[in-house]
């Protein structure tokens, strides 16, 4: 089997499975789930093959065919691009998808939309693979939108509830804002280059020097808009916390591990191109620094465990961008991989709690006590440790790589923000663990750990536990792969070894420890007030808890402006334009009525008119020569 065929099959099989499920298997949930899992498993195997096929640094297997004729040149040529970056990313996608699907067997059991769920997940996997393996920027954009669509449908999976429906809408529209920039950027590139082959863009082949810096800056900025929208960065982040209305496994897969990382992937993918626009990269650096800290502040006060995780996703994605902006693809992508692992882990573990407590609130979960089995707790702790950057969990290594990539060149302010963010991360991660796991039973024990254990429930629990344990194990493993991973896609760039401790790592570790300690003091220790230092300042707490009031700002400005414009346009349409048409029509009828008064029944007036017209005719004939 050739890698190309494998890559095509890897996309096609989940696509086919998804389509089949949605079209034919909607009433057969069990077979739907099996089909989906088998399809993704096969796809996963194929991507593993791809990883091995493209193991050597600098490999780039490309197979393309013309897809869209354009005015000049051969038109847009679509195909697959298999290189270390895409193959590893696709492996991440398929493996996390596979795990999430297995987990969902338990988590979603009994849901009305069970089959639809698996169908949509399969489609998502296919689309995400398409995005990852695309050889053309426009092709990437196509799948980019499709994962957005999948995200919309999955956030709104429980569409009857108002929350998910609204969240899905918000997510779709907000990411569209970024996508519009992306599209414009791509179109500008097509206009300039005729085609937007990713390899050509990265290698600067064919355009080096021919494009003005101003143009490059503009295009890069536009592309970055897309990345920011998809990855919930900068001003476009507010959809992601709301997206947590979707099923938890979906949050794990789409809204932390894979889809939201697409923005990072895009920048990593086109790093060679972005490098040509240093000012944009500089902007990105600062945007990600601010996002990282801002999202961390929000996570500090969130009560909903999934929202905490969502904010942490935003924050961690910002770290990845930070590395990319600083020039290190390796570090950024490394953090992407580890983050995919531990964040999926965190969500899945949290999902078990949520499933158990039927609530997202951390305090509520705590009141319900632990679910059966230790997997959830272990998973949560391991994931949180990785998030906080505790050695030897994977997060430590990757975050360390990110912080290191910043280097002294970034300036002290940047470094303070980056490290401060790390401290906050550790704080809120620990806060989450303490809040969730410190059991505070509620007064009435009716909701306590229950005894009923049907076979199905047991099976479900097992299905949910397996991925958690696997991912937990991964958090311990992934960190060590960093160096080799990084080597694959940025050959020649020296990557520091995992355990090369220096001032930076020590500082990071110290900050992490401080954060955890602070969290323990406030939440963990026996008799703690379980009120954080931020929460003691209501204004600040509200500020953080409300996404820095960005939602309100948007509602008050953009949304209101759009609505006002819409109403204005509607009014104009009904009153002015349509009204004008009606007025002309009514005027015509009125004109008819007026003219009909000439026919007043007085025959002598008719005669008078006739004679007058004839007199006028006579005058016209004698005077016509003068006038003509």
């Amino acid at each position: 089997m050739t890698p190309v065929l494998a890559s095509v099959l890897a996309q096609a099989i989940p696509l086919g499975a998804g389509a089949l499920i949605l079209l034919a298997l909607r009433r057969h949930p069990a077979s739907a789930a099996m089909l989906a899992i088998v399809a993704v498993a096969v796809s996963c195997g194929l991507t593993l093959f791809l990883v091995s096929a493209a193991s050597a640094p600098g490999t780039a297997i490309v197979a393309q065919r013309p897809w869209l004729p354009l005015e000049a040149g051969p038109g847009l040529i679509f195909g697959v691009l298999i290189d270390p970056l895409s193959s590893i990313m696709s492996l991440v996608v398929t493996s996390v998808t596979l795990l999430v699907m297995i987990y969902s067997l338990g988590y979603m059991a009994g849901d009305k939309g069970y089959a639809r769920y698996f169908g949509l997940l399969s489609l998502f996997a296919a689309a995400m693979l398409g995005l990852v393996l695309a050889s053309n920027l426009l092709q990437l954009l196509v799948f980019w939108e499709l994962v957005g669509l999948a995200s919309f449908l999955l956030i709104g999976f429980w569409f009857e509830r108002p929350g998910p429906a609204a969240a899905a809408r918000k997510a779709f529209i907000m990411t569209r804002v970024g996508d519009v920039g992306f599209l414009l950027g791509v179109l500008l590139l097509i206009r300039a280059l005729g085609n937007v082959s990713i390899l050509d863009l990265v290698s600067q082949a064919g355009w080096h020097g021919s494009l003005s810096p101003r143009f490059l800056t503009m295009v890069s900025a536009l592309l970055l808009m897309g990345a920011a929208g998809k990855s919930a960065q900068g001003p476009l982040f507010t959809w992601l916390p709301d997206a947590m209305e979707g099923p938890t496994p979906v949050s794990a897969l789409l809204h932390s591990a894979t889809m939201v990382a697409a923005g990072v992937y895009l920048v990593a993918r086109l790093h060679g191109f972005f490098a040509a626009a240093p000012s944009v990269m500089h902007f990105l650096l600062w945007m990600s620094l601010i996002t990282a800290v801002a999202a961390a502040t929000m996570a500090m006060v969130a009560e909903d465990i999934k929202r905490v995780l969502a904010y942490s996703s935003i924050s961690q994605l910002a770290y990845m961008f930070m590395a990319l902006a600083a020039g290190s693809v390796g570090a950024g992508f490394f953090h992407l991989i580890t983050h995919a692992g531990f964040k999926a882990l965190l969500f899945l573990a949290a999902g078990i709690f949520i499933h158990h407590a039927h609530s997202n609130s951390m305090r509520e979960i705590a009141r319900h006590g632990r679910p059966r089995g230790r997997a959830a707790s272990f998973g949560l702790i391991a994931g949180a440790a990785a998030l906080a950057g505790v050695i030897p969990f994977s997060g430590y290594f990757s975050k360390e790589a990110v912080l290191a990539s910043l280097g002294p060149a970034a300036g002290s302010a940047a470094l303070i923000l980056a490290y401060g963010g790390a401290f906050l991360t550790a704080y809120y991660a620990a806060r989450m663990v303490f809040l969730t796991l410190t059991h505070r039973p509620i007064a009435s024990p009716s909701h306590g750990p229950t005894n009923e254990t049907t076979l199905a429930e047991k099976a479900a629990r097992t299905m949910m536990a397996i991925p958690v344990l696997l991912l937990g194990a991964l958090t311990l493993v992934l960190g060590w792969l960093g160096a080799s991973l990084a080597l694959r896609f940025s050959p020649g760039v020296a990557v520091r070894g995992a355990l090369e401790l220096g001032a930076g790592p020590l500082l990071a570790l110290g900050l992490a420890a401080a954060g955890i300690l602070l969290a323990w003091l406030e939440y963990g220790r026996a008799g703690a007030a379980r009120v954080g230092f931020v929460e003691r300042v209501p204004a600040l707490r509200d500020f953080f808890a409300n996404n820095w009031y960005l939602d309100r700002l948007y509602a008050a400005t953009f949304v209101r402006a759009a609505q006002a414009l819409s109403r204005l346009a509607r009014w104009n349409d009904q009153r002015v334009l349509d009204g004008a048409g009606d007025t002309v029509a009514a005027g015509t009828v009125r004109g008819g009525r007026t003219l009909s008064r000439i026919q007043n029944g007085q025959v002598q007036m008719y005669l008078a008119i006739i004679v007058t017209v004839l007199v006028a005719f006579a005058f016209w004939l004698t005077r016509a020569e003068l006038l003509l």
Partner: protein
Amino acid sequence: MSHRLLTLLLCPAAGLALILLIPGRFVRAIRMAAALSALAACAVTGLIVKGFDAHAAGWQMVERGSWFPEMGISYHMGIDGISLPLLVLTSIVFLTGVLVMWELQLRVKEFFAFMTLLVTGVFGVFVSLDLFFFLFYYEVAVLPMYLLIAIWGSTRKEYGAMKLTLYLLAGTALVVPAILALYVTVTPHSFDLVEMARAGFNPSVQRIVFPFLFLGFGVLAGLWPFHTWSPVGHVAAPTAVSMLHAGVLMKLGAYGILRVGMMLLPEGAAFWAPACAALAAINIVYGAFVALSQTDLKFVIGYSSVSHMGIVLLGLATLSVDGINGAVMQMFSHGIMTALFFAAVGYIYDRYHTRDIGRLGGLSRAMPVASAFFIIAALTGAGIPGLASFWAELLVFLGTLRIWPILAAVVIGALIITMAYSIRVIVLAFFGEAHEHHDAPDIPLFPMLPRAILAAVLLILGFYPRLILDVIDPATRAFLAAMARPFASL
């Protein structure tokens, strides 16, 4: 000469004759006759597609003969890669339209008679290469609309029907003098499109006449500010008529601009292109904004059509390969998409007797499949890739970007609004809790069929646009090459 085009034209015409001959009480036979003529049209279209050579130059399947030589009117038909997709579109919408109206009980005979008449006109426009017949069929397609809407329509049907008819005929009132003026200007006097194009026109004539054609045909294409008939008409029209109207008829306007305005008056088109593009851009943005605050599903679709037809017009205004490719493809995909839209809404309306977004809600639970059709159409409208419109819009935007970057940026920015209204409708009408007592069954298999056909076309083209673009592209290039030829007889 194989007379395939004539045969195609005769399919609905023969259907009309057949329907007229069957006494009105044999409802089933009338339906069958209509379906038969639609199937025949599809089959003949299939033959035409099969016999069409995308890479051959010039007109294909040309049929010509003498008709009215004193007046320069000749029997001249032929197609190129631009008209072919529209023929396919018409056939599909015709067939699905007949199927969608299968359950019709009221005055069945007259309905299908008018419908086949309308389709005859549409086919005629797309195959005519003589301006007289072009306009002849054009009006044949427009007039049955009045009765189709006024008799079988719903909300404010008489008003909507009258408004639609008068707007469209007012457009024709601009077109007729323009065409006659061209006829008397060209030597030798002829209505033959091909000969007229060959002879060419004086640039000053072109500049004067082009706006008449653009505005006149533009009315039917939903050109701002003459678009208001369209939402009102769509809301009033019965399902199949909305399908045919938004799906096919509005394309006649754009096709007229392309085939008559641009082909005959390249200089005029070039001179007015910025103004046309500006109007088209207003269409896009304005239509989207108005759609954003509509509460009737059909009004949303109506204004989305205004917006989408703006994309077609914008593509045409670019006078570039990409723009026109995109415009023609958008004509096709928008045709299929609105047909699907109206088919989906039609089903919902038949069951719930309301189209008010506020009173619907949670439909996806009650009738997932029927809802899915609407959602697919809405997503197509929102320009989601994987559905046909994406490619078309992409090409138009690209074509625009090459010439008017700022305008393109504005129009692309409006995609946000497009997305917003599409998603708003989906979320309000199909998501959320069911507001009303929803116990109607989901769509059964037979009514599903036409809608599924439409959805499938959208998906297939969305996946592989070259299926259609490979046909359009050579024709567009030839078209533009002919346009670029300077006026020889100066």
